């Protein structure tokens, strides 16, 4: 297992180099001058020139890239051009928010999506199945920001049960932290639950048709045991893949949800950074998310092996 993890990690290095190259060059293709975007209303030509020099914007792109990669390898992601805060510090301050939101959303998604998918598969073709499908589809189709605004109106403005937006760190006030997370996590989770439910349903349907399930039923096992122990365990494979991928996507930041609920996570940071042409921040976030994605893929593979003993020997 350890050899496997090691091999997978070393295979990730070329991927990371490609990711960093892409981010770096794509950004440079964006129209708009970062220094001018930063200058806003003040445009002293001397100062603009000084800043272009300071951030090496006059160097050839290849040189800029090498400089950046060199710094990153030494653990220095640079500083935000806009606020001068070190990017590493920014990443560390946003990571807990994003991780927490991703974890809670995924939990909501799994708690709703997987049971709903099982029920729909077991009751295939009945009203229950259609009902669950309609719910799932609406979960996927309702725009996040709209659902978010509706929830704010109901729970924050009308009922005043939950704070409308913002974030309180868990270490500062655990209860308040959960309150601020509840609505955004639900909004995100609801849209993912739909996807998860559809996949669970189809995976379950396939497994339920297989011979060993029929055998298990024929042995006279209780339907609950057949479904949860025999069928679900085998149907879990695609669900695990999907969940880890969804988690990876969530790490990239839930831009709209974070915007509506004013959560200071990766999504909000990267959007602001792109608009301000704050190159160092964009590069830092994308690279960080890239690493996260690669680790999650690895996690999915490791989980496969734990769930499915057959795969342990194949590698």
């Amino acid at each position: 297992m350890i050899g496997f993890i090691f091999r997978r990690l070393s295979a990730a290095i070329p991927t990371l180099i490609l990711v960093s190259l892409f981010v770096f060059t794509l950004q440079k293709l964006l129209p708009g001058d970062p220094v001018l975007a930063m200058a806003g209303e003040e445009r002293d030509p001397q100062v603009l020139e000084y800043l272009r020099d300071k951030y090496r914007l006059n160097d050839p792109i290849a040189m800029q890239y090498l400089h950046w990669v060199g710094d990153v390898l030494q653990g220095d992601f640079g500083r935000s051009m806009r606020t001068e805060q070190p990017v590493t510090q920014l990443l560390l301050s946003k990571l807990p928010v994003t991780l927490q939101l991703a974890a809670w959303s995924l939990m909501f998604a799994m708690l709703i999506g997987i049971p709903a998918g099982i029920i729909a598969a077991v009751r295939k073709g009945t009203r229950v199945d259609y009902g669950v499908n309609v719910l799932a589809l609406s979960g996927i189709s309702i725009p996040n920001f709209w659902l978010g605004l509706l929830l704010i109106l109901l729970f924050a403005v009308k009922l005043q049960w939950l704070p409308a937006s913002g974030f309180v760190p868990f270490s500062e006030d655990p209860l308040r932290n959960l309150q601020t997370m509840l609505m955004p996590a639900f909004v995100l989770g609801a849209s993912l639950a739909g996807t998860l439910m559809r996949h669970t349903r189809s995976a379950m349907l396939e497994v339920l048709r297989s011979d060993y399930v029929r055998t298990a039923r024929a042995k006279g096992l209780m339907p609950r045991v057949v479904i949860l122990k025999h069928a679900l365990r085998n149907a879990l494979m695609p669900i695990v893949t999907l969940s880890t991928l969804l988690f990876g996507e969530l790490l990239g930041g839930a831009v709209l949800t974070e915007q509506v609920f004013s959560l200071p996570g990766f999504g909000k940071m990267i959007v602001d950074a792109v608009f301000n042409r704050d190159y160092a921040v964009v590069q830092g976030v994308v690279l960080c998310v890239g690493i996260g994605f690669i680790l999650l893929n690895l996690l999915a593979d490791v989980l496969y092996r734990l769930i499915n003993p057959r795969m342990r020997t194949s590698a």
Partner: protein
Amino acid sequence: MKHLLAFTGVTLLLACSQAMAAPATLRIGIQDDPDMLDPHRSRTYAGRLVYTALCDKLVETDADLQFIPRLATAWEWSEDGKTLTMNLREGVTFHDGEPFDAEAVKFNLDRARTLPDSQRKSELSSVESVEATAPTTVTIHLKKPDATLIAQLSDRSGMMLAPKAAAGADYASKPVCSGPYEFVERVQQDRIVLKKYDGYWNKDVFHFDRVVFMPIPDTSVRLANLRSGDLDMIERVAPTDVKSAKADAKLKVYSTPGLGFMEMVVNIDNGSKAQNPLGQDKRVRQALELSLDRDAINQVVFEGLYIPANQALSPSSPFFDKTKTIPARDPEKARALLGEAGVKMPFPIDLKVANNPIAQQIGQIIQAMAQESGFQVNLIAGEYATQLSEQQAGNFQVALYNWSGRPDPDGNLHQFVTCKAPLNDARYCNPKVDELLNEARVRNGLEERKALYAQAQEILVDEAPYIYLFFDPRLFVARGDLQNFQPQPDGLIRLENVRLAP
């Protein structure tokens, strides 16, 4: 039982005293996240909102835009207008305990003038040297008389940072000033927390223990947060939200005409896009202006809350020119002017607008109005940062542009319309205008300057390189029990005497 009663009594008392001592926090929802918190280097308007509580400046402005003492208690000009002597307030300390004196003023003005990435250099360009003539007297020597200097010292150029802290590398993330509130922490895109500075010279008029600025870009979310009690006050309220906020008995709406304006910049001589009748013939620009009904745009887009403009100086400024009435829409006359200019109708123009709903809506209305006057407007909506750099590079014909406004008229005119000015994207150049505006810089009398600005604006209205559309009002909404808040033309939130009703 007796013990129990006594115990309950004591607990109750404790609870009460705790409730009374609970720190009073004011949470202000602001539209965007400030950039670096260093007054000499920062650029955003949001930053100025924070500085108002954090960093005191030499001179303050009141609601009528008159200059009043702050860290400078009095000032005096020499006969020739080339020396400014300021007396400084005694007993003032910075948040780190460093004393504020003439040396500190010299340090700050020199820093703002010489730091390589200082954004204040052009504001202080008239200063030749600064001299600490006594512990509480500072003398500023100028290269030439500068009527705008006091105005500059009433803003970021006049903000005083603690010299020792400002010499450090991390100043922008841990600012140290001498204002009524000191810096506690900042979480980017989330909040900036300040707490009351115990050593402040005038601390009795500040009633909140903490002030928290929370950037929330979406206007409706900002209002929802105020409604739910998660904020106490919001700024830059969307005009479309004002009606519902007014209907809410728990909220109070504040409004005052601002200093900023919205205008159409016409490319007069900035590259090849200027080589067409719109850039070359003022009659075509006059026709474009005559095709507009500012009141209609105001009603449709801004619920009638904006103030139609055809000059750069706002009605809240003492320099406002009352004689410049806004021309009524006149499509017939516009067509006649286009005919005189010999252009073929419909005359095509490209109008650049930012890709936000408000700018796009205005663009669409202008498009419809101009069509009836013989123009064919192509709207090009793009991201604002891109628009700015294209504007500067001359890649535009007409662009919709916003300016946040300055208290001194010079800041709203000189840098846009004089021949070599940094913000003159139109590359408009008229030596007569330069002469008048340069003259207005060195004169000190209000009436004298006012006359010069009026003359310059007479030419600008006629030649129309910039077609002014609106002054934006400063709109705030706060909880109903907030007392003594006075909105001011610069839109900054001054917290003197502001408190919650007991």
